């Protein structure tokens, strides 16, 4: 049902913004795949094993969402583009109400 859908935006390194609408429970990585968003490689398919689905959330959205797990925090130490205070692995961020209106920034490189 449309009323349950959540809308948020991907922002490319150049600043281009693309709004997407997704269902709760999907991961941000899956949503990026479905919408052909460039710059989120996610090569391991969402197993928290490759560190190539790094995104940076806007601070307010980061605060609204559940905190990353210890495993995700460790992996974030190893991503290619510089880690930011609000960095997340998009395979670990589930679409929820907290993500409504969020800006999901894609880093320069995943490799």
């Amino acid at each position, binding site marked *: 049902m449309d009323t349950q859908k959540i809308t948020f935006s991907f922002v490319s390194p150049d600043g281009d913004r693309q709004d997407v609408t997704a269902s709760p429970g999907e991961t941000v990585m899956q949503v990026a795949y479905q919408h052909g968003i460039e710059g989120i*490689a996610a*090569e*391991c*398919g969402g197993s928290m094993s*490759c560190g*190539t689905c790094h995104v940076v959330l806007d601070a307010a959205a980061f605060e609204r969402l559940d905190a990353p797990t210890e495993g995700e925090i460790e992996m974030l130490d*190893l991503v*290619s583009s510089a880690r930011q205070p609000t960095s997340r692995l998009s395979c670990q961020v589930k679409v929820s109400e907290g993500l409504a209106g969020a800006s999901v920034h894609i880093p320069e490189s*995943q*490799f």
Partner: protein
Amino acid sequence: MQTEIDAHNIPVGCPMHDAGARFRPFVHEGMYDLFAELRATVPIFYSPEIDYWVVTRREDVIAVLRDHERFSAVNATQPVTPWPPEMLQFLVDQGFTNESVQVACDPPRHTRVRSHVQGFLNPKRLQSYEAQVRDLVRGYVAAMQGKESVDLVDALTYELPARTAFLLLGVKDVDPRRVKAWTELRVKLMHGHPSREEQMAAADELLDFWRFSCDLFEQRKRAPQDDYPSFLLASRGGDDSKLTENEIKSLTFALLLAAHETTSNASANLLLELLRRPTDWQALVDDPTLIPNAVEEGLRYVSSVVAWRRQAKESVEVGGTALPAGTKFLLSLASAGRDEATFENGETFDIRRKNARAHVAFGNGIHFCMGAPIARMQMRMMLEELTAAFPAMTLMREQPIDIAGVLTFRGPTRLPVRLNG
């Protein structure tokens, strides 16, 4: 759930039976053509020669790789041709204590070990080798200058990845060809079909390779350096519950193979496809920014890892076929890489292909290749340096190209080229 199929009772005349009879697991000639034909109608078939079920479609290959709960990796590097009991006993007696710690083990052990390994084999740390790898590539390319023709395997792709592996391991003053020879032997013992005599004769060499790995470990234990075994020793912190010493020896032994074997083959596969298509080579000469995608297309079109193995932990359904616990699967990464369901005109090599990177050459799921960043780096740099140094390079088409093949790996044994056209 459907009724499970009995592998030994597939009716003659059934497409699945026909596929199993035609598939020759250790022969690479014609493999891509056969899979192109099978993918359309036969998503899975039984290969009696190896007692494995072969999976042909990308979607099914990825589904199995991602499902580590139901599909175990324990058979990933098991000898396809079992080792004779006398050989196993000899190895045990001589202190060969290599364990399956990473590529061929399951959670929770895999998770525990990977958490240590990841501290070293990760995109950021591997990037830090960029300047050193560039120097290595330039050294090999410089050594070709002044020659009319070379074999690119002999002159570059065979040794270079081993030298890069040595950087990670802190190995100095060792002939890379010594490690390459050991590696080839080990690959044949795991994924090939050696005779019993060959297996017995190889045992001593295998032991030497293991001891080389153990010596490296002992040296780093005495005097830590800035390298992989030293990092793992520090990460273990003397605590066996975190990581044992034998696990580190085994991880070092694993990297001494995994860090270069597939990159050597992948580089040679890529160069061969590019040189077979002079307009593609010229395109990279004219516009080097095309190189990273050409690397991905090479990995897609001819993966150096043509197949990988899994085993069902419970009753499963793969490609619409119900199979019992214990079933062994050979996932054709070669076939998956050309699957038209994902790759339009999948049988066409296209260096500008938009979704080339959707290949599965580095696997998928929790066992995704940790060395992928440095493998790509080397392939990219080889192309950058070769196209810059020898823009008119051509393949010597009159000379035969042999593909050395085992069950899982593929690469040309030689690549004769004229450096200046």
